[in-house]
């Protein structure tokens, strides 16, 4: 009541102004009302709960990202695209991009294949109650407990060309003196293999969980119809888990861009850039040649590539979310 009285009093002085003041006052009172409702119904609760995560993402994620983009185009306080024009003509950059593509491809194909075969073997083994398959499958997540650094060092020792156990065992097959990490042809394959060793158990676990979600009744019905195991696999299992497999492939691609430690410790990107992915190149430019501006430009290009893949992933994620989950 009193709120509506105020503008009326002021009409005496100036008509035009009052109208404005009136609008202003009602807006304020609207806001006030909203605010009291906000407090009384505790509508602030979700925002309050999100406070810390928003703060940490802004400070430790968004700000560094912007900082990185800016430092790629500003050198000594002046705007310049020199870093990007250098990028376009730098053969090492295009080579690193190609190595990254190869790495991502072989890593994804390899880890999906090995993860899938292992999961299938465990699943069939457990279903038929083959003795020992349970113990074997419990070993499977073991490399997850081994830090990247330790895994890299052990493989480095085993792949040692002169004293390593792998070359010793291969010598019985008549293969002598393979340079696993120091020959340009083999190094990338070795690096991919160690990366797969470290993380394929995760894929196995995920695919196993996917197998378990296929309803038993489907198989029972197929059994009654006289479908063979192979038919059941192709017509029941595969279509049922196709969605999660697509999801897993996309996720693996996105994750494989993140791999750094194993490559760095095994080869540092060598020999002759043979294993230098974009991630390794960023690090080398920034902390070996101390060219942070150029490193940032490479980082931005990697960001764009990962962003493009992520858009695909997000699109797929939204679609499956709409269909009611992945499994």
């Amino acid at each position: 009541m009193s709120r509506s009285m105020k503008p009326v009093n002021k009409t005496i002085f100036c008509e035009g102004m009052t109208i404005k003041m009136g609008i202003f006052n009602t807006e304020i009172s609207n806001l006030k009302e909203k605010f009291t409702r906000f407090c009384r119904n505790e509508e602030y609760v979700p925002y309050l709960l999100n406070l810390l995560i928003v703060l940490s993402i802004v400070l430790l994620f968004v700000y560094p990202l912007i900082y990185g983009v800016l430092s790629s185009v500003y050198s000594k306080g002046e705007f310049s695209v020199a870093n990007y024009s250098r990028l376009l003509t730098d053969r090492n950059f295009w080579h690193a991009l190609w190595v990254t593509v190869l790495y991502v491809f072989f890593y994804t194909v390899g880890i999906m294949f090995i993860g899938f075969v292992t999961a299938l073997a465990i699943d069939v083994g457990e279903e038929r109650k083959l003795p020992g398959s349970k113990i074997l499958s419990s070993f499977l997540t073991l490399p997850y407990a081994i830090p990247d650094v330790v895994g890299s060092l052990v493989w480095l020792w085993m792949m040692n060309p002169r004293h390593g156990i792998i070359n010793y065992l291969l010598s019985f097959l008549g293969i002598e003196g393979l340079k696993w990490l120091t020959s340009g042809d083999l190094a990338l394959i070795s690096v991919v293999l160690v990366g797969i060793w470290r993380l394929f158990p995760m894929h196995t676990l995920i695919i196993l969980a996917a197998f378990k979600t296929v309803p038993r009744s489907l198989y029972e019905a197929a059994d009654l119809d006289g479908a063979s195991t192979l038919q059941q696999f192709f017509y029941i299992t595969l279509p049922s888990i196709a969605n999660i497999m697509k999801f897993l492939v996309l996720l693996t691609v996105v994750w494989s861009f993140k791999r750094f430690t194993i490559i760095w410790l095994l080869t540092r990107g060598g020999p002759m850039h043979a294993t230098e992915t974009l991630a390794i190149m960023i690090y080398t430019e920034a902390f070996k040649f101390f060219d942070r501006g150029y490193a940032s430009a490479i980082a931005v290009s990697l960001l764009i590539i990962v962003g493009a893949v992520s858009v695909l992933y997000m699109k797929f994620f939204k679609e499956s979310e709409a269909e009611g989950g992945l499994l």
Partner: protein
Amino acid sequence: MSGKRNVHYRKIGIYFILFFMAIAIVFPIYWMLLTTFQPTSQATAYPPSLFFKSFSLDKVIEVLLDTSVIKWIFNSFIVALGVVVVNLLISVPAAYSIARYKIKCNTILLFVVLVTQMIPPAIMVVPLFEIFASVGLNNNLLSLILADSILTLPIGTWILIGFFENIPTEIEEAAIMDGASKMMLFYRISLPLTYPAMVTVAILTFFDAWNEYMYAYTFISDQSKWVGTVGVASFMGQFLTDWQAVMASSLIFSILPMLIYIFLRKYIVRGVSEGFAK
């Protein structure tokens, strides 16, 4: 008849795959043990022996006494513990908020959290290094705790969201009848129900923080503040490498996560499968 033989072949095939995989997984770990616990002359001899011939603790003792390995592992422990605490403090309330309140702001937040998980740390390392240096946090373990927390935040939030969503709303509705405020619903009702999920998140976070190398290698130059990953990797010499010392320190550094793995494996498996089952 042919069907029976077929089943037989299949059985052999399955065993072969499982056996081969188990060897591929376990052999490097076995080789680390073998190199560590043999007398030096045998451990690095060529041709190498595939089996234990004699047992020796000499190298382990040497590494423990003559190097800072214990100090580095202690630093790793501090960082990992810090990351677990920070991560839970941040992700638990946020996950609850995202699971319970389907408002637009939360949809955006979930999207951003998923995006942070896709960005390679190599993109973040240069700006983070310069930002930490500018606020005097370089050579400080706190910089690692902060940087690692962002890395582990998404997986923690993701698992917890699934867990909060599985809590039946009837429990909260009953509490509302009794006049509980919204904050109390979170703090008194839902939070205690998620302790098991928090254990899973804590373990996965701990592993990730224990495993982190790039940030630690970059942000910390003071040798007494190195964490385990950097310290162990430093055993690898430029020209001459004492492989037995490398394996011994690697083994010492892996003991804690391996113990956690052996005793709390079910939490890890559950975390992985539940994170995806959502």
